[in-house]
């Protein structure tokens, strides 16, 4: 018995697969959670905490600001420093008219929280895909290792690679082929399009999400930067369809 659900929220579609439980209240809780995150963090909502902080209507230190928002801001600050300013949520054009948009971290973070919740409820085998960012654990419906496709950047219905993994893992991919040039290099304000896509895997999807965005904007030197983060590996795909990857990442690739 397993559960499968797709929820449209946060401007994308979240596919949820819970393999070793048929308790639908788990799905309800996840749905509630993702809508709550949307309400707090969406830059498309005028009354979200993030928009209010961005416009200056609310100070980040205001007691009204939740621990979750504070945690996200704290981590985004650290990542900004870590990436030398390439990952900078305070220098991005935001739909609410400000320059503040932490979505590059929030989506993966919210899914990572969802995964922690499922584990706390005793679920061992699950997979959540939020608009291309994936978290998984255990094994798939057939009891085999999860097979995760990485979309081919030039062919919407084809795959560039297949990863074969089991156990706790987050997989995040950044690129321009779905939403166009939406990834900015905060250092010079240009849109980053030198790569077709960048994929990062590691134990925490929130981190992998931010790292994938950073590697994508950095370009080929991004893999060197990524390698300074133990436990995280990745690949990037160029426009002429060359795949550059680290050894650690290649171990995940199904032959």
């Amino acid at each position, binding site marked *: 018995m397993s559960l499968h659900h797709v929820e*449209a929220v946060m401007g994308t579609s979240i596919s949820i697969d819970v393999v070793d439980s048929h308790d639908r209240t788990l799905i309800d809780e996840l749905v509630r959670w993702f809508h709550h995150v949307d309400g707090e963090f969406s830059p498309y909502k005028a009354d979200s905490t993030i928009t209010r902080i961005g416009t200056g209507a609310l100070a980040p230190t205001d007691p009204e600001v939740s621990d979750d928002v504070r945690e996200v801001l704290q981590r985004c600050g650290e990542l900004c420093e870590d990436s030398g300013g390439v990952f900078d949520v305070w220098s991005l054009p935001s739909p609410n008219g400000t320059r503040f948009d932490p979505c590059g971290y929030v989506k993966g973070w919210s899914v990572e929280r969802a995964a*922690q919740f499922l584990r706390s409820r005793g679920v061992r085998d699950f997979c959540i895909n939020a*608009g291309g960012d994936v978290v998984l654990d255990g094994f798939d419906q057939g009891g*085999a290792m999860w097979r995760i496709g990485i979309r081919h950047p030039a062919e919407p219905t084809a795959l560039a690679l297949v990863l074969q993994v089991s156990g706790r*893992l987050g997989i995040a991919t950044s690129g321009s082929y779905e939403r166009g040039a939406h990834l900015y290099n905060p250092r010079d304000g240009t849109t980053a399009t030198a790569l077709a896509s960048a994929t990062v895997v590691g*134990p925490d999807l929130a981190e992998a999400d931010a790292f994938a965005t950073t590697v994508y904007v950095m370009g080929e030197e991004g893999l060197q930067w990524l390698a300074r983060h133990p436990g995280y590996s990745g690949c990037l795909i160029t426009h002429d369809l060359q795949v550059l990857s680290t050894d650690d990442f290649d171990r995940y690739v199904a032959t």
Partner: protein
Amino acid sequence: MNTPRTPRNQAPIDPLLRLQQLDRSRQQQLPPPTAGTVRQPTTTRQAADARRTSSPAPRQSAPTATTLLPSGVKPSAQASARIAALAAARGTVSGPGKASSARGGKPVGKRAKPARAAKVASLALSAVTTIGLAGMFADQNSQTDSIVLTQGTIGTVAATTATTTAPAATVPGNTATTVATTAPPVATGQVLDGTYVGAGDSNRWGTVQVQAVYSSGQLVDVQILQYPDGDGKSVRINQRALPTLINASITSQSANVSTVSGATYTSDSYTTSLQSAIDAAKAASGING
């Protein structure tokens, strides 16, 4: 500008002691949580369970929080509407109060910060590697790996600079001639106060570059300018080419994947995406939530 510390109350730095301190602090760092396993002997749920029941080791206890929403937070109207719609579709009543657990809103268990702890560990290791350049690589006192100072104002005699317990920093004597005109000669024969940048030293771990701070003839600090990536290993980048022909690409049918990680898509583009086809197939096979 680097103001050299007065060493009056400060003992000269002993690289060997420093190495031991750094090594100890590195061991105290939490290891990052391990990511998913790959190509391990247990490649199926059945095998993993069999291994678990045959071994006496208890399972790791999971975080105890059982709700996601923080305490005191009511589900938004949007969320409540969605839950009601789902319940109606299932034909059951499932109100928000029913599903929440008795434990009220304790935040989900502390999220480990693997990157940060591991980064500190790797920095410490890099410092270890750097000190290793003074001859302290883990298992030997190499004579060949030494800090090379190529700049700086050096007094007339430099033989007894740095510490005495480790191979001394090699100081090229010929630089003295170029700076003799700018710096007053020092009769004491010790290294003049200041910060000296070493040449980058490339070894099998990568490039390490340090700068040494001298004060009153003593080495008082060693700062790392450049260090090898990660845990000291150079990153090897592999390259392969994807097929450019459509029919040579991996198709979802032949790949039999559970899900696709692609660049983030919007709700609109989702409907035409590969992921939606996979989700539709799952829904059609009768599993629902």
